[in-house]
């Protein structure tokens, strides 16, 4: 088995006429925690959605275990997507189903398990994220942070080899956020899950990152390990890690 799980090469993406990603290339290795960082609106979510096949690029290739997902037909893509877990920025929980049913959804569709086992697995996954008591609540009854965690529980429902996670700690209190970081590290250790995580939080970057990709207005400006990032000579990367503000926020209006 090769070391590279996901490989993005020369990805160009537009929304309408606006260029959002400009020739982005990177690779995610098996078993690592790969972080995508960068300022608000720089295209992190867009990159994540391309990596998971939810958007199709203008040009470029995205290879998942060696197969190019931009060339796949709908059925192949759906099959590939069953092997990954995605937790969305706004959680993506189905509002018409209870939290428990949300987590059970992929299990029921593909898990080939009995209803009793599914129920037990739902409980297990929810308790992993500290949400066991919320199984029978509706998503609208949860706080933002609880939804995030429920979304993660659903993403790991099928024990996928790789989980994509959009801004896990946004909207969580520091204790919960740090707990989530521990959880991510534990999941990697116990289940060998590879993580691709979009985040802003410096603390959690320092805690979990193996390698980091930094985007700025759709361009890759840095890619490397955490220690390389901290000592990087790229001005914006240094600025990010030192938490220095732009002279004028508004000047960077795009």
């Amino acid at each position, binding site marked *: 088995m090769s070391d590279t799980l996901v490989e993005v090469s020369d990805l160009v993406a537009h929304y309408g006429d606006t260029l959002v990603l400009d020739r982005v290339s990177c690779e995610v290795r098996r078993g690592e925690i790969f972080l995508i960082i960068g300022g608000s609106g720089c295209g992190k979510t867009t990159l994540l959605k391309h990596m998971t096949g939810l958007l199709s690029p203008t040009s470029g290739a995205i290879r998942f275990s060696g197969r190019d997902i931009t060339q796949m037909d709908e059925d192949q893509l759906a099959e590939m997507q069953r092997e990954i877990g*995605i937790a969305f920025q706004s959680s993506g929980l189905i509002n018409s189903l209870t939290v428990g049913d949300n987590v059970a959804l*992929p299990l029921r569709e593909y898990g080939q398990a009995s209803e009793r086992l599914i129920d037990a697995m739902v409980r297990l996954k929810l308790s992993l994220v500290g949400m066991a008591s919320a199984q029978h609540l509706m998503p609208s009854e949860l706080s933002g942070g609880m939804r995030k965690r429920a979304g993660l529980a659903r993403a790991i429902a099928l024990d996928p080899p790789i989980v994509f996670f959009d801004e896990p700690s946004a909207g969580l209190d520091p204790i919960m956020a740090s707990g989530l970081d521990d959880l991510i590290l534990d999941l990697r250790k116990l289940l060998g899950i590879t993580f691709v995580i979009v985040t802003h939080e410096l603390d959690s970057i320092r805690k979990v990152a193996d390698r980091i990709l930094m985007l700025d207005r759709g361009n890759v400006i840095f890619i490397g390990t955490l220690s390389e990032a901290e000592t990087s000579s790229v001005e914006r990367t240094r600025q990010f890690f030192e938490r220095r503000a732009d002279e004028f926020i508004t000047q960077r209006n795009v």
Partner: protein
Amino acid sequence: MTEHRLECPPSLDQETGRALLDQAHRLHPAKGDVLLLDFSNTGSMDSRGGAWMVAIAQELAHRHAELRWEGHQGEVANFIDLIEPGLETAETKHHREEGILEEIGGRAYKYAGEFWEFFNLVIDAIYWTIVGPLEGRGFRWGLWIDEVYEMGVRAVRINFLMNFLLGLIIAMLSAAQIAKFGLGIYVADAIIIGFTRELAAIMTAIVVSARTGAAITAELATMKVQEEIDALRGMGLNVAQFLIAPKILALLIVMPCLVALGMIAGILGGAVWGILAIGIRPENWFHETLLAASQGDIIQGMLKALCFAIMIVLVGCHNGLRVTGGSRGVGLMTTRAVVMDIFFIIVIDIIFATVVYYILDSSMTF
């Protein structure tokens, strides 16, 4: 190029700022001109005054002239520093005048794109409603039952009421015309023919598009906006299979039932007026009604019902999935879906009328 000079007031606020803009306006700066604001007498300014200054910068940028300022000090200088990016980026949008051909082309392109999307949706929906389940690829019967209840059972009362009242109104209208000649009994014919061929199907379709069509669009649009659709696709689930197919099959079952109910309700409504107001004896009225009833008319109404059902679900889903931009988009798309529903109800009706009365001839024999 010329340089204009304006002296700023001691305090730049809402009122004085507006006056300053008026002055700048009266100078009629031309392309390449420079307008210099002199702040040497200005001791204070607030954010409304600052906003007027941005407005001046916009005005100048629009005329391709330049804004400069001098003599600012202390508090005012700090404030100007703060708003400077706003002054520099004042003119960012260039409104290029589009030629008429360009506009027509752009619109045609947009509608072609939308039509292509709709076409794909139709293919997907047909596949997952008919072929998919037959191939054993799964159909969500649980959701189907919920939808039948929501679309059908809960619409029974309102649909009955609407058709009943419409029957009453049609009876009133036609009675006013023909009862004068002592032919009141023939109102019964008008009612049953009208309701079986046209009115029940149309009235029901309007009720259903306002209830169900709007609900479908709002539901899908909200799901799209909240990344629920992405989440489904991200789990490898097909949206057409998961959400659309159960709705289509549900409405295909529900709609004929509602239309049948509508026919009965309309006929009852007409009968109430015929018997109570025109004064026809009940047995005569119902005898006449049964005489005028025709299987062909009923089948025509039912066929329309099926077409309306498919159309309402597809239009609802199409608009829901096209939503962009937050809660406002959801509202816009819902409105659009209902308007499109009403429009296509008429279009389908016209097609039926043409086919039945002109191509198959009016003596349709089933």
